């Protein structure tokens, strides 16, 4: 137990903080209950996907600035395909969206590996490329979402004993958790951690550094596209303008224990961090803080989190 806590103190602390935030929300808004939790979770779903995408690229020693644009592509593509192919074509549409996401990520990864230009520059450029692609797919909100798929993330789990648990949380756990778990059990996952931790040592250990990096970006792209899909499901239409997911995902990843220098971090921490940041936003709204001030506070929280994360990483590496 002590060993577990020593190793997972960060995630444990985040879980405690999350519970405290729930309590605080309840104090501010006594009516906050099962339905409140449900709407927070549903709103958190795209953020969770974005954060998972960001986490995996940061762990691989890179960063993915085009995450929000890839989400926009995923969101518009899914809305258009579901409108065109109807209920029967929903599952193929899902597969196409995931493949498109992986392809976008792979393009980013190949560009980073081949050009040897810093990933922060490459993905910044790709942010505009994918943003343009999203606008080509839909030049305004449009398309539609298949009803049964929408219902998948609505309401609570209809099982005895679980009627408090939002469906969206279950989807999050199954999809993100499933992808992450299989990654952690694979040699690819190990290689991703290895190249982020120490590229030279990884190379000498026989890891194929370039392909591993491309794979990390590809998985990130797929997660981003799924995030776009989840956004389409919760609003019912595809939205081509990228949302505020870039900074939010970096902040959640770092608050969740992912080191900006690469090689360190998991998925549980970042996902809990998404909820903490969402609840902080909700609380500010509930306290009827001026929306403009809210964005200042939010921005400050993110900047401080990223800065602290950077400092911690620096000290760890110096040891």
């Amino acid at each position, binding site marked *: 137990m002590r060993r577990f806590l020593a190793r997972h103190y960060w995630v444990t602390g985040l879980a405690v903080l999350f519970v405290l935030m729930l309590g605080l929300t309840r104090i501010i808004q006594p009516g906050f209950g099962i339905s409140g939790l449900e709407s927070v979770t549903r709103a958190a779903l795209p953020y969770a996907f974005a954060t998972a995408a960001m986490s995996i690229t940061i762990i691989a020693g890179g960063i993915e600035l085009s995450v929000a644009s890839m989400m926009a592509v995923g969101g518009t593509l899914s809305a258009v395909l579901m409108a065109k192919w109807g209920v029967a074509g929903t599952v193929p549409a899902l597969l196409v969206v995931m493949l498109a996401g992986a392809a976008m990520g792979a393009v980013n990864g190949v560009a980073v590996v081949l050009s040897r230009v810093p990933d922060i520059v490459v993905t910044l450029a790709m942010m505009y490329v994918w943003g343009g692609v999203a606008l080509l797919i839909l030049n305004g909100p449009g398309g539609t979402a298949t009803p049964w798929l929408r219902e998948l993330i609505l309401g609570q789990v209809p099982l005895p004993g679980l009627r408090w648990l939002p469906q969206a949380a279950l989807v999050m756990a199954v999809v993100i958790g499933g992808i992450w778990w299989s990654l952690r059990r694979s*040699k690819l996952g*190990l*290689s991703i*951690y*290895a190249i*982020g*931790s*120490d590229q*030279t*040592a*990884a*190379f*000498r*250990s*026989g*890891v*194929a550094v370039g392909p591993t990096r491309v794979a990390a970006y590809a998985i990130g792209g797929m997660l981003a596209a799924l995030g776009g899909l989840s956004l389409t499901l919760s609003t019912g239409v595809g939205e081509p303008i990228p949302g505020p997911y870039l900074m939010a995902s970096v902040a959640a990843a770092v608050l969740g224990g992912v080191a900006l220098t690469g*090689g*360190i971090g998991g998925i549980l921490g970042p996902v809990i961090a998404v909820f903490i940041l969402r609840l902080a936003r909700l609380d500010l709204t509930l306290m009827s803080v001026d929306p403009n001030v809210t964005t200042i506070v939010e921005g400050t929280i993110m900047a401080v989190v990223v800065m602290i994360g950077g400092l911690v990483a620096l000290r*760890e590496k110096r*040891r």
Partner: protein
Amino acid sequence: MAATGDPILKAEGIAKSFGAVRALRDARLTLHRGEIVALMGANGAGKSTFVKILTGALRHDGGEITLNGRPCRFASPAAARRAGLIPVYQEPALIPDLDVAMNLRLGGTPVEAFLARVRELGVDDLRLDDMIRALPLATLRILDIARALAAEPDVLLLDEVTAALPTDLVKRVLAAVRAEADRGRAIIYISHRFSEIADICDRATVLRDGAKVGDLAVEPGIEEEVVELMLGQKLDAATQVARAPVQAGTIGPPQLELRGLSVAGRVENVSFTLRAGEVLGVVGLEGQGQDELFDAIAGFRRPDAGQVLIDGAPVRLRDPADAIAAGITLVPGNRAEALAMIRSVRDNIALPGVARARNWGAIPMRAEAARVQAAVERLQIDTRAMGEVRRLSGGNQQKVTIGRWIAHGVRTLLLFDPTRGIDVRTKRQIYQLCRDLAAQGAAILYYTSELAEVEQACDRTIVIFGGRLVDEIPAGEADEAHLLRAAYGLTARDRETAAGAPA
């Protein structure tokens, strides 16, 4: 053990060029099962390039490598591994953010075999869920070796694996390596320590200027022969060619003094005195602690023990600004670290003068221009590319890094391998620059990887080996052969032997 049958590894006529530089011309190596061959060569002989080619980190331009009778050309370290050749380097190739078990899984190492090797090598308290980052360097070295052995390679390449290991572990590692060879494995062993080579190696292959110059059986007294092979013709040349004698200036009072300085396990108990007007040479093989020594004096690293005295008074050097305030200036080995490459020569020379915060306001343009002009003339910097330092040749860049400090006056100058990769003419100018600075009363500490430079530039030379100061050589005796023997720790052993201590 007698080498029998066909060689398991054979490299012939290996050549490799980097642009115009021919790092390797005709490197050769033959290795049989059950044999340990030492690969030797002085700095710049092409040893590390050869190792990189053998292990698949670089590709050769010419020549042929056969492993198990099959010609091969490794595309990557992974390919070399698959073919049965596994290297272990001085810096352990373990992933710091993964635990031991994950590191094993990454390379596909069988866990049971690995644990058996680890125990054999004398580490008992290893847990598979220990994070690599949390383990001490000596343990990592052992794990790295155990991992390589557990993969049952045909050929094992050990590159300076005993550096910075405690003595008892060194003995265990050597014994384990010998035992592996006796079981029929073939091993390439690279070390700067003759004593280790004498202990376990069967043969020594010597490289010089990118070619194999000798292959001899290891037996007592081999050291002299190897040193001669490493030096080659130079040995005769050095005695015949009249060398420019060092113009000893007036040596002043002690300016920089080290007392028992130790740094992070790489520098141990180093003491010396550097006087005003003196150029003190520092000589050592690669990675003997000279980097850490210079960093500590320049305030980049904090020493664990010992004192630095300036003008007889102890000083605390917490960061480079402290060292600069104490009159200590480091010119690092990598020029790119010292210069703002895309700025002009003028800006780079002027920079140290404006770096202090209290000098932030307006720049006295005329005075600065005069100072820069004087420095450029003095250094004979080629002024056609004044606009951007990065367009200057390496030699001219190096002149800027040193010259900028002349323009501002310098008391104690630390030069770390200032002539690396620059042409002969510029080298001479740099020696002259050092002499001039010393004549003005500066104290200069001069590390060089080119031993032949020492007699041209230095008044006195200290030799560092394994983090310790092992010898001090006056100018008159500092010929290349003597320095090389000293750099391999051989002169220290001579003295011990002469003093009756066990060699």
